[in-house]
């Protein structure tokens, strides 16, 4: 598979942008071509936020993801909006802590990740995004786990180093799909 199109959606405060950036950053470090495109404008008002990440072996034309191989939805409204964006045969990762509705599509792989719960268990409630990142990486192998770990160490350095351990835990929290 030469190109991966990932769409991540949730609410403003859920760290959607960080997930996407980390993914893109790690892929770049692995020598891939990457683009990252966040939604903009609307977030300001606490609406939904989303971003698209494309990872490829070759130059990427357009950073917009109209249909995604991997869709990650972190809350109910995003689920409603983006369930249909999964390419047939693609994967849908959903934050089952917050999304209660049943998935209607049958032509895709579904991964329910109790992200908020697992994050709290890991000791850092706000890291549901990192839990989810762990799930995606582990499940799809889109980038290497150890490289994400490296990136997390970089992200949570300096003043933020106090959050590192919990995030590393969160990253490993989800075990299987």
């Amino acid at each position, binding site marked *: 598979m030469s190109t991966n199109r990932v769409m991540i959606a949730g609410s403003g405060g859920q760290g959607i942008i960080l997930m996407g*950036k980390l993914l*893109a*950053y790690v892929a*770049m470090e692995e020598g891939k*071509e*990457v*683009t*990252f*495109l*966040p939604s*903009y*404008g609307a977030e300001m008002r606490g609406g939904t936020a989303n971003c698209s990440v494309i990872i490829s072996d070759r*130059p*990427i*034309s*357009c*950073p*917009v993801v*109209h249909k995604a191989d991997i869709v990650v939805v972190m809350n109910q409204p995003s689920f409603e909006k983006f369930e249909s964006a999964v390419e047939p045969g693609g994967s849908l990762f959903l934050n089952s802590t917050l999304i209660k509705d049943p998935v209607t599509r049958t032509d895709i792989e579904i991964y329910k990740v109790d992200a908020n719960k697992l994050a709290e268990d890991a000791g850092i409630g706000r890291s549901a995004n990192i839990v989810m990142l762990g799930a995606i990486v582990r499940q799809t192998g889109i980038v290497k786990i150890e490289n994400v770990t490296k990136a997390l160490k970089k992200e949570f350095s300096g003043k933020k180093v106090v959050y590192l351990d919990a995030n590393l835990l969160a990253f490993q929290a989800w075990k299987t799909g």
Partner: protein
Amino acid sequence: MAERVLMKGNEAFAEAAIRGGCRFYVGYPITPQSEIPEFMSHELPKRGGTFIQAESELGTINMSYGIGCAGGNVFISSASPGIALMQEGFSFLCSAEVPLVAMNVSRSGAGIGGIQPGQCDYNQVTRGGGNGDYHIPVFAPSTMQDAVDIIYESFEIADRYRNPVMILADGMMGQMMEPVVLPEPKTLYKDEADIANYKPWALTGSKGKANRNRIKSYHAHPAELEQYIDYLYEKYMRMEKELQRAESYHTDDAEIVFVAYGSMARIVREVLEVLRKDGIKAGMIRPISLWPFPTAPFEALNPEVTKVVISAEMSKGQMIPDIRLALKDRIPVKLFSRTGGIIPSTEEIVAFVKTLRKELK
């Protein structure tokens, strides 16, 4: 090769400007470029430069005129309606021969319109929305690397011609991240005292000069003004010759040639691949300079080979007159257009081409 870094477009633009010689940045918030002033507000002072948040776009363009008069290398940025407010200023800077690098991270629609990406400022930036006979070179990068390279170079272009230079990007380019290699920082002048050497025409105080410098726009006498306009025009003609830039992709054997710039060109690049896989010979001309519009690649097209040219825009055909002029109307031009902030998908452009080919047959 230098390291690739992953940067947000707007931040990469700002960084490229700093490395290209920008010592002053002036700006006013407007989506989708606000990360440029935000980045500049904390980065530029660290790098020995000055950030000014202006009270408006009028403030922006006129402060930067002041900086330019005084010999400072200045970068400004805004988005569509903000650029509209600067038209008097651009005209003024051209008339006074004051260099400036300006960036339009454009959005969609007239008036306030929408804040999503658009290309409908083509006329506004290429046609001189201010009064008088003047021209501003406009460069339209399509990747982050393009953008970084041309911004970096623009300070020298602006200084060389003593004229504003415009970079036209759009909200997609401003907001996206992609890896980029940043050029080495360069220094255009050492310090305040060095300005008078680098720009002998600049206002640095008359002390030690044979003649005091003055920078003006008003000419009371028609004969004098006409002469001045002729002088400026000679410069514009030089710019027109020297600054045309474009890239051609597979145009030699192309039955269909797209013309697309900026974000749209990225998409068309993929469209070409898909079409060629399907056996349709498609090519693209990507104008990099929008003014001067690059004529050579159009002159090179052979009507025996190329049956149709498609202007692919996120606007309502604004580029078509330039294409027709460059083509001398030798090949019919069609429009593919999405507007309102919608970025078209590869698939819909491919479908458009397939329908068009059926119609043409």
